[in-house]
């Protein structure tokens, strides 16, 4: 009984550490960008910046810099330096559309966007995940030198999407390129 109690206490403590609310600014040298991390959101250990408030399946914000020559998972298309934002947006839509794990993909909006002075695109998508749950994704992206920068907000269900969209916009507005390089 005593042993079970200690294990439970340990697990609770470990859970608290994992749930630490971060906030602050991410300008780690691991990335080529800096963004403000909202209060109450925590990082999840990934090769890109992934933050969530209540768990990645409920809502997450992902910020990534990737070398334009790097292949995507599903489409074999590649980003190119001289690509227009519209062409880059098409590759992202094709990547989602080619993913066998998602269904009923709908592109609700695809338009040019200014991402803190960078000419890019904005796509709003809805789709069903592997277990049939609905997801909403707002995806911003632009190409600078050899790097494709992207910021996306994904939420499970419309309600979760509406709840944190303003938080995502604040993250988007705080975004700054530190250095466009390969990753």
């Amino acid at each position, binding site marked *: 009984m005593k042993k079970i109690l200690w294990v439970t206490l340990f697990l609770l403590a470990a859970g608290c550490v994992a749930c630490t609310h971060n906030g602050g600014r991410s300008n780690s040298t691991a990335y080529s960008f800096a963004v403000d991390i909202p209060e109450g959101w925590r990082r999840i250990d990934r090769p890109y910046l992934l933050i969530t408030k209540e768990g990645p399946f409920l809502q997450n914000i992902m910020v990534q810099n990737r070398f334009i020559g790097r292949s995507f998972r599903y489409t*074999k298309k590649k980003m190119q330096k001289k690509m227009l934002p519209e*062409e880059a947006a098409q590759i992202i839509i094709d990547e989602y559309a080619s993913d066998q794990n998602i269904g009923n993909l709908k592109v609700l909006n695809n338009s*040019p966007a200014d991402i803190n002075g960078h000419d890019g695109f904005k796509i709003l998508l809805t789709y069903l995940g*592997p*277990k049939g749950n609905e997801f909403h994704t707002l995806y911003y992206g632009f190409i600078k030198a050899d790097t494709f920068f992207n910021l996306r907000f994904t939420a499970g269900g419309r309600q979760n999407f509406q709840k944190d969209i303003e938080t995502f916009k604040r993250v988007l507005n705080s975004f700054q390129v530190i250095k466009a390089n390969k990753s």
Partner: protein
Amino acid sequence: MITRLCKFFFYLSCLLLSGLTTGCSTHPEPIASDRLLTNADEQFLWQKAEEEQRVLESSDLIYPDEKLEAYLNDIVAKLQSQTAQSDLEIRVKVIKNAYLNAFAYPNGMIYIHTGLLARMDNEAQLAAVLAHEITHCTHRHALRVFRHFKDRRSFLTGVQQALMANKGLQKLAQNIGLTGSLAAVSGYARELEAEADRVGTELMTRAGYNPKDALSLFDHMISEIEQAGSEEPFFFGNRARVRERIDNLQSLPADRYSRPRPIIINSELFLAKLDQIFLDNARLDIRLGRFQAARRSVEKFLRIKPDNTRAHFLLGESYRQQGQDSDIPKALKSYNRAITLDPNFAAPHKALGLIHYKKGQRALAKKFFESCLQLSPNTPDKAYIKGYLRQFTLSEEG
């Protein structure tokens, strides 16, 4: 001890089964052990298959084309008339998916992907794939696999585990279900697949097709998989499994299947019946970045309908989206041809606008963007086009 015994009987049954199948004659007869649906195992499998098909049919994966289905079902009827299993109703439907595959449920429902159909050149190749799938149904391969497992739960867990190994297929597994996935992704044991090759070849030969046509299809598939440099997620997109098909067909004694009768190839009829598949699948291949495959499909279509606007536009897209400067003149040629054939089709105007915009040819770009907006004022990409036009205005003012 009990576990050891179970394992022993399991391996014994595997051995017996492989002995049965390898020892099978090449007569296209189904297992005559018992009649259809007279045992609980088969009833369970059929019930599961029907449930899974209802989910699949309600998804957006089915390619809706009744005339095409009727043509495919006619070929199935021609092939099935060569079997003894006439009480099993076998039907075919098409799935919108650019990956190479076809699979059968135990209750006789066959699904074939647009991707596999688009790679074919004639009816004989189609008959080869259908005859293979028909044999899985008539020879009750799903039931034979099911009986390898000690109970229903371990069967379902086994298939589920195989699917979980392929993380890219969870959504698909949800749509086609476990019995569908078993056939679609991993295929059956080597012996059962060999039986489907052997019996299927005899079915198609008896129905008047030349089995050598199947070889040219599988050869083409192998070279495409090798060219792509990566394997596809399904059975017919797996290099090793397609190689097995070729080896099995090549190992069949040639004289056994040569019949002094007219050979059916039906290239023209096949191309005419599948024309829309070639275009629709080319669009899926362009999305996947498989530009060469897309071009081959469009070119096949253009052999039947050389003046089709949409086909010329798609050919242009396959060149432009590939992003090589050397392909741009070919893209221009295709878009211009599309506009000549139908000046009111907005999409090639937009594509020409983009090409000229990137080349810095502002006057031409402006002309095509404006004509696109005029032809299709509510085009989904109007925000981009208006943005380009706004830039032109600003630079003129500046």
